[in-house]
């Protein structure tokens, strides 16, 4: 088994807001190995993007962060802004959901890719251009489009540009936050295929955030399920789909299955005012007395873990 590359230990993120303290992430433990692709899945508002932003230290000022994010022996949470800038892009790249909003509308695509190269690698103008063209070809954009502007690109092509930029410095990890959610099915298949290809060819680990279980199946080696700011289950992909353990995981897999719709009743809890006990208990069909009183701990089995009283000894 490959060595661990990025380890998140007991990450807690709270936001100070007018409505009170929002408990966005609670005791997150995750590990990504070299060349592994890990997926974080959960509903909107469950805190999955917060985890991604915390890794890169991109959370807003009102966030209170504690815990450790160990990357190649360093705790990223202790780095200053200058050191962090050396990690972002160079070591850990990020791809966002809305590629259109990440590109500057008034500069040509090619120049935007080249700009990153000039700043990070101090390449000269023509060297940077050469490298940018190379990257464009690598992600399937015709070099003739070097001088075109973002609005001339479709969503799928914009996402290819983002992937080209993410690859520019041969990072060890790409964090992709819902990279295909804004794309349609055919384009999604193209982009997922590309992401998989480039990460395998360049030995890059993938940390994929999504709410689509189908995408998880296609892309990942293992996954973590997040609910209301907590990881409720971690498992290798085949084991998860074969035998989900946590009631929430089971409900997710069952909610849209071939036999019809089985929606999960109720709704996601309010993160400013959490109930005692297990955070899933009001929606859980196996809820018992202990679930209402005591917050369950992660129970580990050989390859997987689950946060549920029904599995603890």
């Amino acid at each position, binding site marked *: 088994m490959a060595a661990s590359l990025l380890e998140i230990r007991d990450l807690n993120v709270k936001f100070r807001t007018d409505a009170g303290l929002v408990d966005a992430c609670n005791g997150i433990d995750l590990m990504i190995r070299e060349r592994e692709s890990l997926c974080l899945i959960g*509903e909107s508002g469950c805190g999955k993007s917060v985890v991604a932003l915390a890794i890169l230290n991109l959370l807003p000022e009102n966030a209170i962060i504690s815990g450790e994010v160990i990357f190649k022996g360093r705790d990223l949470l202790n780095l200053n802004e200058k050191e962090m800038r050396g990690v972002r892009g160079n070591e850990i790249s990020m791809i966002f959901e809305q590629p259109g909003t990440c590109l500057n509308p008034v500069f040509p695509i090619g120049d935007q890719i080249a700009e990153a190269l000039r700043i990070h690698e101090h390449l000269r103008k023509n060297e940077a251009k050469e490298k940018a063209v190379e990257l464009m070809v690598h992600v399937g954009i015709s070099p003739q489009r070097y001088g075109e502007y973002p609005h001339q690109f479709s969503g799928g092509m914009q996402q290819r540009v983002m992937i080209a930029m993410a690859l520019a410095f041969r990072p060890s990890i790409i964090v992709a936050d819902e990279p295909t959610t804004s794309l349609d099915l055919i*384009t999604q*298949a*193209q982009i997922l295929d590309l992401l998989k290809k480039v990460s395998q060819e360049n030995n890059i680990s993938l940390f994929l955030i999504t709410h689509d279980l189908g995408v998880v*199946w296609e892309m990942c080696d293992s996954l973590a399920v997040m609910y209301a700011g907590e990881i409720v289950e971690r498992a290798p992909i085949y084991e998860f*789909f074969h035998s989900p353990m946590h009631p929430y995981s089971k409900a997710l897999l069952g909610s849209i299955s071939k036999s019809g*719709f089985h929606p*999960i009743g109720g709704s996601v809890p309010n993160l400013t005012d959490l109930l005692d006990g297990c955070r899933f208990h009001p929606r859980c069909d196996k809820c018992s007395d202990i679930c209402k009183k005591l917050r369950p701990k992660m129970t580990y089995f050989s390859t997987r873990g689950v946060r549920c009283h029904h599995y603890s000894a």
Partner: protein
Amino acid sequence: MRLDKGETLAIVGESGCGKTVVGWSILRLIEPTSGEILFKGLNIMNLRGKRYGELKRKMQIIFQNADSSLDPRMSVRNLITEPFRANRIFFNGDTIRELMEKVDLNEELLERYPHELSGGQRQRIGVARAIALKPELIVADEPASSLDFSVQAQILYLLKKIQRDYGVSYLFISHNLNIVRMMADRIAVMNMGKIVEMGRTEDIFERSAHPYTQALLSAIPAIGSDRRKRIILKGEMPSQSEIPKGCRFHTRCPLKKRICETTIPTTTEISSGHCVSCHLVCDTG
């Protein structure tokens, strides 16, 4: 295409293929350039005035984006009673209560405004507005695609329940084939403004004949499928203003032949109710 009473016909295709245009044309939110739309035997293209108004009540739409289709300055009570007021139809507290109950919304929400509601609740308001006048046809334009999966399942379940209770027909527009499979009785697959294949749901999923349909189906990230067996289409959809000659799909088709570049394929019925327009199918069948 044809939609029967109490039936769900789904239109699937990529963004920009024209599925929404079809839905909007039926309600004449877009005035079609030519052609006929018959609703209960009457050509709605020729109707004007009062008769058209009466007919129009029987046809409603649920929009994709519940956030932008609800007036932010109207309360829930105003929003769900607007269809009655707009059509000068009597309503009272019981009507409102019944409607809220139908879409599983708590009456406490009546005095709230859209920004105070969750995405799922907003879409339920959209559904309530659509069913208020007891229509016979509802055009559901990506009714769940802006929602989270667990909420998505709740909304789709609600739509199914309403169909069971009222016998309403749905024209269900979506690009999510996993959802379409569960919602639709029949499916029409659209590519670049044309229907390339149409048939019963099981025809499309199990015996699809058009290469575009096959590519769409293989693009579904289905759990349990073989990860390697996928048709990845090369290139982008051509622009609608420069439609390719011959078959409109030929620029991306993995099975293209010479004839596809020059001749527009005709539509062939390969089995009862299952129609395809593709040269490859016509050759063999």
